């Protein structure tokens, strides 16, 4: 008698393609029943794999994170004449960061700091965190692009070009503050953004695969995730009672 192989037992276990001959064989053959029982024990053991259960508010939390990015997903961010204002805001933020860190250094000697160190750090964390999130989105879109044939990356290129200037300013701020982990990732990110910005805007599948492999081989997405996660941990609120509150 020919016994059932493991593949047949797996299909039987999952109820794929009901086969009366398999049923009959199992009824008649103890060896195959024993084999099936052993398979079932392993697969039932897999059911005990523990999965953390997010809180009830998890869906809302996901929405809070996803919602601001939906507009960026469908529209170019500079639509509606926002570009000049945003560039000014970014430059102002970077100038504030650099100035704040410089002032912080001087203050150690001359007591001239306009901002306390935790406040300066918090500004830095939030600004860089947002910048990394925007950069990550471009890289993820490129890595996950499933278009067959010629791929048009002009949208991603434009956004990469816009981010290069910001990146440079934040990197300088991080360097001045002595935050080597952040400045190092921003330096790598800058190279990747430059590569994207300077690639042809329409790539055939082989060229696109090369771009994708370059992003993946440098592990930049992983590094961004790690730094972003560290930044989030460092984003501690100012101590109670000391923060100024506008009433």
């Amino acid at each position: 008698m020919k016994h059932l192989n493991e593949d047949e037992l797996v299909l039987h276990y999952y109820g794929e393609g009901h086969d009366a001959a398999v049923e009959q064989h199992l009824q008649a053959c103890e060896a195959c029943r024993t084999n099936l029982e052993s398979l079932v024990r392993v697969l039932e053991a897999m059911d005990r794999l523990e999965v953390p259960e997010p809180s009830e508010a998890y869906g809302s939390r996901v929405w809070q994170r996803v919602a601001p990015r939906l507009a960026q997903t469908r529209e170019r961010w500079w639509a509606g004449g926002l570009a000049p204002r945003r560039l000014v805001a970014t430059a102002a933020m970077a100038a504030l960061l650099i100035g704040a860190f410089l002032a912080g250094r001087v203050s150690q000697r001359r007591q001239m700091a306009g901002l306390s160190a935790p406040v300066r750090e918090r500004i830095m964390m939030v600004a860089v965190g947002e910048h990394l999130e925007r950069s990550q989105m471009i890289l993820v879109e490129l890595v996950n692009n499933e278009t067959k044939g010629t791929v048009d990356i002009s949208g991603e290129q434009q956004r990469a070009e816009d981010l290069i200037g910001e990146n440079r300013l934040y990197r300088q701020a991080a360097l001045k503050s002595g935050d080597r982990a952040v400045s190092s990732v921003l330096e790598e990110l800058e190279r990747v953004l430059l590569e994207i910005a300077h690639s042809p805007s329409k790539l055939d599948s082989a060229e696109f695969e090369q771009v994708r492999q370059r992003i993946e081989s440098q592990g930049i997405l992983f590094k961004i995730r790690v730094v972003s996660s560290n930044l989030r941990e460092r984003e501690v609120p100012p101590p109670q009672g000391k923060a100024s509150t506008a009433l």
Partner: protein
Amino acid sequence: MEQSDAAAVAQVRAGTPDAYRVLVERHSHSVFRLAFRMTGNEQDAEDLVQETFLRAYRQIGKFDGRASFSTWLYRIAANCSLDFIRSRQRRREQQTPVDDQGQELEVALVAADPTPDRLAFSGELKQLLAPALESLSPMERTAFVLRHYEGVCIEDIGKALGVHSGAAKHSVFRAVQKLRKALDPAVSTARS
């Protein structure tokens, strides 16, 4: 009255992005569970949940309503997860020679040597499950997670991942084979 998925999708497609909130809040937990089983890591799973919803939003114009929204979303989540674990594997291979990886897994399994004393059922056995799942290739893991935990039939797994059903079937078979090899001794000991 609770808005249906189909109604929310129609509103999003008509230009009301806020309607997407219903879909995100309704399906986040299940997408998280799928992503966690695929990655074995909570932070990565949370990132994948966000990526899944962003990708689904971008592609919502392509949703034809033949399958339910949740099925369509799971396909996207499975592909996001597959891309992620492939990329993670490539990074690991660049950092660690393949032989060493195999050895590491072996060491991990041997270290949790399932002697009857240590395996008074469940406790120690549970610790072997994640490494066993981790030992599967990205495609094997995706196919297994979809078949075993999500109850997706093999033909639909093939469609979701863009491969022939024969390839999907083979991935499930290989996955089960590897899991049995890794867990059979422990499961048998735990039972005895």
